């Protein structure tokens, strides 16, 4: 497919890798990279970890050096948002003005859900952007003493662990009975919960936020079980929503993300990648939208190539999802796609020591591997998952560990 120009909307991880890939593969046409944040592409994982702890400077967040970015010769438009798309008319609306596009990469990611009734209340934060992280970091530095994290998800858990590391009192509330259960299942979710309690987090499950108290500034939270707690910093980690509003009426299928085919194509000459993309992963035979760093990179690469391929040349995007999360001195990694009621078996180390590898499986299939401070085992397991190993084959492999 010969294209003269490619426009990428969303100047973050997936968008950057799309641009980098096009140039690396020798594409010489114009590449426009349009992003509504004022910053050059930066990395989000450190925002809840080292950056929040104050251990990382702004310039170390960049996805690449200024020099390498310049080498890509992009038409880089920062602080600029796409406000509409007309697929049939081949036009994009940027900052209210229409412009034609040839190939288009949609990489607008997700944004955080907010807690109703907290708009405008100081001390209430979500964490998605560098500016969000700087605000929380400054609140911690300004002497916030009692932090509450709403929602036991991974980013909230990382904020909790960073705050504990700074001597802050932390409460985490989760509406479900099983913390982290949706991702890890009940059994392994309980192990994660134990790690947090071990470090002094007051983790309360099966309770929701009834009311956020405070006049202009958060002062406390009343929970659904009637308890009222003093809180001076409230972190809301109750999930994300894909940024697709600007695509309403564009002709694309929107359903919890931009729906694509198995090759990441959403419409002729239009691809989507990263947190915003929902596609049928042929490995699993189901539509999925993955919110992990590695997926944004791989899919950004795949989608960019797809734009320059004919339908015949196109290949399916079939990764085994994988992510890591750093909490306290533990590195948690999950490869694969566990179902909450899969069988779980610890295959190396021990959960009591918070250092182990566990396998998930169902119906004789090996579905996922979880590791806590076991990066080597998780990476090897990812290889087994990619090879389609059975439950028995995976267990036999793991029997050689330790």
């Amino acid at each position: 497919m010969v294209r003269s120009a490619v426009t990428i909307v969303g100047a973050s991880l997936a968008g950057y890798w799309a641009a980098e890939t096009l140039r690396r593969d020798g594409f010489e046409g114009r590449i426009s990279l349009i992003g509504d944040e004022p910053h050059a592409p930066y990395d989000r994982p450190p925002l809840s970890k080292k950056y929040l702890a104050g251990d990382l400077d702004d310039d170390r967040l960049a996805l690449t050096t200024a020099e390498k970015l310049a080498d890509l010769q992009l038409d880089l438009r920062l602080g600029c948002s796409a406000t509409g798309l007309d697929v049939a008319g081949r036009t994009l609306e940027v900052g209210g003005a229409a412009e034609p596009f040839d190939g288009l990469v949609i990489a607008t990611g997700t944004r955080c859900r907010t807690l109703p009734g907290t708009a405008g209340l100081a001390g209430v934060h979500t964490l998605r952007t560098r500016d969000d992280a700087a605000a929380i970091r400054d609140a911690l530095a300004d002497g916030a003493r009692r932090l509450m994290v709403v929602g036991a998800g991974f980013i909230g858990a990382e904020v909790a662990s960073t705050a504990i590391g700074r001597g802050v009192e932390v409460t985490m509330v989760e509406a479900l009975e099983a913390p982290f259960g949706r991702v890890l299942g009940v059994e392994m979710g309980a192990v994660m919960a134990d790690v947090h309690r071990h470090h002094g987090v007051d983790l309360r499950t099966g309770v929701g936020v009834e009311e956020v108290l405070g006049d202009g500034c958060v002062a406390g939270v009343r929970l659904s079980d009637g308890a009222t707690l003093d809180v001076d910093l409230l972190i809301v980690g109750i999930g994300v929503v894909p940024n697709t509003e600007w695509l309403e009426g564009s002709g694309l299928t929107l359903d919890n993300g931009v729906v694509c085919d198995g090759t990441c194509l959403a419409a002729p000459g239009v691809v989507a990648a990263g947190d915003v993309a929902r596609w049928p992963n042929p490995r699993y035979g189901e539509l999925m939208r993955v919110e992990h760093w590695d997926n944004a990179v791989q899919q950004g690469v795949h989608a960019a190539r797809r734009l320059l391929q004919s339908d015949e040349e196109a290949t399916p995007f079939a990764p085994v999802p994988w992510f890591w999360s750093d909490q306290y001195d533990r590195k948690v990694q999950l490869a694969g796609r566990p179902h909450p009621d899969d069988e779980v078996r610890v295959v190396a180390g021990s959960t009591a020591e918070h250092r182990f590898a566990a396998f998930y499986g169902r119906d004789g299939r090996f579905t996922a591997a979880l590791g806590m401070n076991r990066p080597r085992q998780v990476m090897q397991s990812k290889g087994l998952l990619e090879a389609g190993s059975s439950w028995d084959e995976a267990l036999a492999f793991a029997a050689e560990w330790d």
Partner: protein
Amino acid sequence: MRVIVDFDLCESNAICMQIAPDVFEVRDDDFLYVLEENPGEDRRAVVEQAVQRCPKQAISLED
């Protein structure tokens, strides 16, 4: 080609190991080890991919 890792930057998330397991290994002590400091020319493309993909830009190559 010589592989150099800036261990002050490395966060042991093992992305390099996923790409080139014969060159990089994150062990159970959570540290990254370079298994092959001077990989052969046939590994150049793979090692360069690890250099590119490392989220911390901790890996560099010297000829």
